[in-house]
């Protein structure tokens, strides 16, 4: 179904560029937004992440897959500075990021979501959204005291937040506490809130976990929308159907390393991946395998 969709120019260009790339781990991309080099993270004796080279093409949807414990989430944490690697360098959008604290990566346009949804339950949905906006004058306490200094900016932010809520079908929940949302709605809220910072790279950690099939389709469309608006999406996912459906490029990790890269079709034919990830049960749902 991905093929029939009308893609934006940037999405087509990204896809065409990826066609020319080598199907090898750590392959170079024509226009990478994120480049990681020799990133290694050890927990005691365990090497959680040991990535020699990684590039993510700008404007693409790149999937990061791998069995549990492959180091996908740890890699996310490292790239967004939520965790510090033992060694390694990485560049986002031409800027070196090793010394940048996590809160500043967001302001630079790299935003991430979490595997376990982090909705701020005792804040209303609209307040969750407003929080996402960056560069708020009223977030300095000396300005916060004087409503006149931040009211107009707050109105702009609210307008933007309401537009996003409408896009994610959450308008009717605007004034509810986020804690009153269902699991799937929380996923939507978290994604919408991340978009409030107007990112260039959106990193989604298992966006489909615990979401029902109907809403999954909905989320798929939202993720494609992000790409069509020119954002780059990097996501971790176990749902192979979804990965195949929406991603332009797939990176496979196992035991901390990247073991394969390629288009979704290449990957489903790659023997290394079948060994490490799909196992002997290729073609059957992974969920059945885990159960």
């Amino acid at each position, binding site marked *: 179904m991905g093929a029939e969709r009308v893609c934006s120019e940037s999405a087509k260009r990204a896809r065409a560029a990826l066609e020319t790339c080598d199907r090898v781990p750590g392959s170079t991309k024509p226009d990478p937004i994120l480049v990681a080099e020799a990133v290694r993270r050890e927990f005691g004796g365990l090497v959680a992440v040991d990535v020699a080279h990684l590039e993510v093409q700008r404007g693409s949807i790149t999937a990061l897959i791998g069995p549990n414990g492959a180091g996908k989430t740890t890699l996310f944490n490292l790239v*967004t500075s939520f965790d510090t690697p033992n060694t390694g360098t990485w560049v986002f959008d031409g800027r070196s990021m090793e010394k940048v604290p996590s809160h500043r990566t967001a302001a630079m346009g790299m935003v991430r979501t979490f595997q376990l949804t982090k909705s*701020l339950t005792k804040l209303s949905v609209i307040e969750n959204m407003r929080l996402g906006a960056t560069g708020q004058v009223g977030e300095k306490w000396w300005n916060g005291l004087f409503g006149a200094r931040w009211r107009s900016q707050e109105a702009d932010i609210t307008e933007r937040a309401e537009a996003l809520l409408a896009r994610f079908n959450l308008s009717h929940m605007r004034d509810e506490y986020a804690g009153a949302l269902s699991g799937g709605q929380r996923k939507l809220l978290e994604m919408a809130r991340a978009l409030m910072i107007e990112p260039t790279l959106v990193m989604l950690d298992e966006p489909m976990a615990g979401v029902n099939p109907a809403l999954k389709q909905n989320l798929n469309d939202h993720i494609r929308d992000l790409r069509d608006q020119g954002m780059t999406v990097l996501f971790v996912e176990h749902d192979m159907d979804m990965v195949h459906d929406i991603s332009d490029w797939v990176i496979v990790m196992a035991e901390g390393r990247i073991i394969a890269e390629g288009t979704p079709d290449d990957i489903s034919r790659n023997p290394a991946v079948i060994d490490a990830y799909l196992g002997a049960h290729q073609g059957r749902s992974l969920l059945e395998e885990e159960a």
Partner: protein
Amino acid sequence: MDWTLIIENSLKGLVGINAVYFAVAAIGMNVQYGYTGLLNFGQAGFMACGAYGLGMTAHYFHIPMWWGIPLGVLFSVLLGLLMGIPTLRLRADYLAIVTIAAAEIIRLVVRSVRFKAYFGGSDGINNFSETFRKVGTDLGIRQSAEYGFWPFRFTGRELWTLTIGWCVVALFGFIVYQLMKSPWGRVLKAIREDEDAVRSLGKNVYSYKMQSLILGGVIGTFSGMIFALDRGSVQPDNYSRDVTFYILTALVLGGVAKVSGSIIGPMLFWGLFTFVDNFMRQIAENPIRIGNFMILQSTQIGQLNYMLIGLALILLMVFRPQGLVGNRKEMAFDGR
């Protein structure tokens, strides 16, 4: 049994100086605990900063008393930094441990013989508040005259402290209310819910937690100042652990994360405390005897009263965890 007296004293307890200094300290703790989720168990330490800031102007620095206000604020900012820098990056429990220890260290240092020249040792400091009293007298309030109407009859001395005290409550209540409506307050509340989420949205969580700790501490400092001015003396043992916990009790009684809760809580705390205390004293005047056994002796009233407060807090937590003005709906999402 003299019910008029009991009721009069209880109503005076509602608005008395104890309620005032508890309310100011509770407003500060509410910023930290109620809005940001920081467990500061060292509010007494911040209060001591204010009291000793005032006291030291006379005792050590020999400068006019008013310098004590910026001095106290400076002390509490330093204390906030000292407690916050090592602990705010860690989990919340560490802050609780460090703050309770820091407040105790302060109390033990200021009461020590070694530093008597600076802090007056265990005798404290007594000779600094005339300047404050004089402003009241100059405004025409006679210290020993009686003002007001039943049941709120106060001496001029009490009236003057109370007026200033309630002004301070109103000022900080207003400031905190305004701040918590602002985007700044929104970030604090979000940090209370989940700091990683806030960090991922580009906010410097560490800095906000520090701001919250210091703001709450500075407000607590003013509470210590009011208390010291009312007593006309600074005593180290007035700033011990139990003060912090009574203030926390009063705050929870009113309801956390609400400015009104942090003011109503302390008022009711002292209203009830005075009521029970007076009531039991009336009973003790004509003790009920069963054979050789006396039901209540006047020497037991103090301890019994604190036991009842503990019991009341337990019952409150079980049946009304959101406090008197808290939001039941918010509590429903607390199952984390």
